[in-house]
């Protein structure tokens, strides 16, 4: 990952702050990962797999809207819970990091 290079080519080569770039990349990757999981989960919850045609029907469309709302809520609740637990020992190497809601 790009972030790992930080030590190697440290900060401001031509005015570029590598730390800032890496933070932005982590944020981008996190949002992308979250979005992709939401797409997969709401697909599983809302989309009929008979595939008789290629359009979303009314029921599917409404389901998607509610699914996105609920998925966002769940993400927030889980985040608050993790934060209140001061989550720190889950992974072998530790696991830490401050984080808020999307």
């Amino acid at each position: 990952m790009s972030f790992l290079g930080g030590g190697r080519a440290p900060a401001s080569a031509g005015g570029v702050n590598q730390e800032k770039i890496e933070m932005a990349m982590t944020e981008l990757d996190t949002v992308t990962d979250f979005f992709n999981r939401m797409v997969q989960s709401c697909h599983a919850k809302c989309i009929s797999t008979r595939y008789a045609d290629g359009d979303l029907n009314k029921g599917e469309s409404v389901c998607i809207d509610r699914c996105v709302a609920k998925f966002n809520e769940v993400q927030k609740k889980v985040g608050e819970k993790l934060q209140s637990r001061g989550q720190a020992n889950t992974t072998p190497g530790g696991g830490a990091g401050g984080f808020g809601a999307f």
Partner: protein
Amino acid sequence: MDFSNFNGAEQAQMTKIIEKRQMQDFLRMYANLAEKCFNTCCNDFTSKALSSKEETCILNCTEKFIKHSERVGARFAEYNAGPKSVMST
């Protein structure tokens, strides 16, 4: 995301990186979609050719996934509009 505190050189680098990420994301989405539609639509291995029924299923599966993703993306954008940040500690 908010890049207003990025200088020109930083914005240029971010743009390059984001373009590469988008290509990677697209390729991953493509592979994932092909796998998903295959798994749903293909269940008969008495022949190596796609039946017309399977082909229709694959095309509808693809079409529907795109529309689904677009709708999720539109709703997601509404919820995430504004200056809130994932990393806001």
